[in-house]
């Protein structure tokens, strides 16, 4: 049995459409200082390892930003590395950090993630830059965008299972409502299913309010062995310990068409979940997981995710979402933070923000209006592209 790390401390910036006064280094600095305060540490002298999490050299107009970030917070000459895995970057960074601790390579590692996807470039340029992470010769050059690829997937899901636009509109409404209870959220909204259905078409059947946000923001987690956290973080014992107890990762073909006939759901996510559940000893995920942050890059993606993660049978995600099974008062509250739709999605920080929400839920330290009572085990689901890479991380409170 490997020794799983604990979440020693967490920190983040507010998530915003534009932090105009801050570049990526500034945002990352803010999140790291917030994490230090959470740990009760004055400096990073005891921390053994750094790990930078960001997706885009293009958005930042800077290569080797990881080295600059490590330098900025004075972690030199300690070891550091940068992890990139598209939309899954933050979760993959945490998985990598997890492996560093479990393997004994280090006892403490600071994972700092940042992205400026907000208004540094126009949304048209942003779409083009994101489309560069599709297959350039076959998908990007024809004018394909990720909104279009996801739209083609959910249309296949609708054709196979009868999933409806009203059902995925419910996700857009609920996650933006949950964001209203999260002080760092970018865009809380009190909207109705009809508002979503009436919003501007972007890539049919997805409309403006079905789409997640472009964001600026940063997030940071200090992972460590329990012994290290107890010895070095004065505030660690003030909260019940939350362990990062399992991690799964899967992959799939880059192009949707190469997955035919499996184009309704995410096989990489199913594979990641199987691994994570096996590692955590989970047999019935819906009953054994209390809170989850799912990758709602588009509203319908959450419906596909609840099926792939085993929270609903294949094809049953739409009806389950629509009856409120995953609302704050449902069987398994998901995206209590507001998700990518409401809290926001600064890519390199997104997976870290998801883990922070789960940890704070397990610590019972979030706003009472979104607190899941007695939550003991939580999950994050994060993927890249249309789940060409998928990561499922599991966190458990043990006290």
């Amino acid at each position: 049995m490997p020794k799983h790390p604990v979440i020693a401390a967490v920190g983040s910036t507010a998530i915003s459409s534009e932090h105009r006064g801050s570049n990526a280094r500034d945002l990352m600095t803010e999140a790291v200082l917030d994490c230090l305060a959470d740990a009760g540490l004055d400096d990073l002298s005891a921390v053994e390892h750094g790990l930078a999490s960001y997706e885009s050299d293009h958005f930042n107009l800077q290569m080797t930003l990881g080295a600059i970030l490590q330098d900025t917070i004075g972690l030199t000459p300690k070891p550091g590395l940068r992890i990139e895995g598209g939309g899954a970057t933050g979760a993959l960074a945490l998985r990598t950090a997890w492996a560093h601790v479990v393997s004994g390579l280090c006892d403490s590692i600071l994972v700092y993630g940042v992205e400026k996807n907000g208004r540094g470039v126009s949304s048209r340029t942003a779409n083009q830059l994101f489309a560069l992470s599709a297959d350039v010769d076959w998908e990007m050059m024809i004018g394909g965008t990720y909104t279009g690829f996801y739209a083609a997937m959910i249309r296949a899901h609708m054709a196979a299972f009868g999933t409806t636009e009203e059902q995925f509109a419910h996700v857009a409404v609920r996650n933006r409502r949950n964001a209203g209870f999260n002080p760092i959220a970018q865009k809380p909204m009190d909207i109705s299913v009809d508002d979503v259905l009436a919003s501007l078409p972007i890539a049919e059947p997805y409309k403006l309010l079905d789409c997640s946000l472009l964001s600026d923001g940063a997030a940071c987690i200090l992972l460590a062995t329990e012994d290290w956290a107890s010895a070095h973080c004065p505030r660690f014992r003030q909260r019940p310990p939350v362990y990062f107890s399992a991690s799964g990762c899967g992959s799939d073909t880059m192009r949707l068409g190469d997955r035919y006939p499996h184009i309704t759901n995410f096989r990489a996510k199913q594979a990641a979940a199987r691994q994570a559940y096996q590692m955590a000893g989970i047999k019935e995920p819906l009953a054994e997981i209390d809170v989850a942050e799912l990758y709602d890059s588009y509203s319908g993606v959450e419906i596909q995710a609840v099926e792939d993660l085993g929270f609903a049978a294949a094809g049953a995600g739409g009806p389950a979402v629509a009856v409120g099974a995953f609302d704050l008062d449902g069987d398994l509250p998901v995206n209590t933070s507001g998700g990518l739709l409401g809290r926001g999605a600064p890519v390199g920080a997104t997976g870290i923000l998801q883990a922070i929400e789960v940890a704070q839920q397990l610590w019972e330290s979030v706003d009472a209006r979104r607190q899941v009572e007695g939550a003991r085990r939580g999950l994050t689901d994060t993927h890249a592209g249309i789940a060409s890479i998928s990561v499922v991380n599991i966190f458990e409170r043990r006290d």
Partner: protein
Amino acid sequence: MSDKVSSQIDVATIDGDAVTDPWREFRLVERITLELSQSYKYSLGKYSRFFIELENRRFLATRCEACGKVYAPPRPLCPACLQPTAWTELSGEGAVETWSALHFSPASNADARALETPYVLVYVLLDGADTLFPHLLKTPPDQVRRGLRVRVVYSDEPVRHPIHLMYFVPIST
């Protein structure tokens, strides 16, 4: 506006408390416009014959001799068998499997012609292929449905990326 920094967008003071903001010394922010453009000697590699044959109005796929799977778009290597594949010609006819009408185009693509919105992205199961081929279907969005029969049309106009030497249209019945 600065008369010395031609790229300057603006200078602004970010909100914050004059006493308690730890960054009170750093609230003055200048923004400038930066541009970066590159051109690449970009090899189409082992895909090349597909693109070259589009100029000859022929639609090629690849077939794995070991497992028989036909890949369109072509794969030079069968990922299941790890064997080099062989070129095979398809009719260029097939059926729409799924699609989306896009109302928002990326800033540009390699084709000089701007994409007029809405445009239709289709995934086509070509006759004789085992995978779906993504491309544009030139037809009004309300006429697209799953199973719609389509065929490849070869373009005579000059293009920047050879993938634009083709597109799909419905087969009129």
